[in-house]
């Protein structure tokens, strides 16, 4: 199954309809705003979401949905999934 690296709210909108059941979505860069603003991306509850802690802290965000991960976790996810797709809309 695929790993989706989502870089923006619009990137999530592009990624979401093209997800398969077992896929994992990582929110990073400005994609982390999807995890704090349910109206920006109200489909987030249907996806297996991970959120980069580094990007949350950079942006001063604390309360979010989704499991928090760090760079070693991201590397681990990459080893478990193929292909790895970036969504940077």
């Amino acid at each position, binding site marked *: 199954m695929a790993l989706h690296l989502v870089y923006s709210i619009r990137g999530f909108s592009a990624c979401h309809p093209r997800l398969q059941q077992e896929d994992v979505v990582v929110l990073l860069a400005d994609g982390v705003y999807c995890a704090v603003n349910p109206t920006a991306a109200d489909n987030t509850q249907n996806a297996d979401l991970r959120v980069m802690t580094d990007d949350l802290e950079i942006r001063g965000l604390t309360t979010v949905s989704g499991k928090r991960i760090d760079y070693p976790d*991201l590397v681990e996810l990459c080893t478990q999934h193929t292909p790895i797709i970036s969504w940077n809309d």
Partner: protein
Amino acid sequence: MKFTIAVHGAPYGSFANERALKFCQACVASGHEIVRVFFYHEAVLSGLNSTVPPQDEIDVTQAWADFADTHQTELAVCIANGIKRGVLSDTEQARYDKPSPTLAQPFELVGLGQLIDAMASSDRYVEFPA
């Protein structure tokens, strides 16, 4: 596991380089191998030897050079994308009769074939967009 890393975003115009560096560091710390880091689009500017970043900010080019030095990683700048954006090795500077070479050590100017070649021998390909 073997990884090919592609960086697409410009240094200072994006945070693609900072993110890719953190990923690469975590990658080697977990015992994985980075076959090649390939700089494409505006990311070729990461290989310029003439950038002077503000003192309180990261020097992206130096950070890559330090990483490559520590882990013997190949830093490959796409030659077609690079020379049109002013990134010139000694050879290209002489070929096009430009005033000076601008490629930082230990970056190399290589053809796109080197990206595909790295992918062919890698288990994973991770791209860092602008």
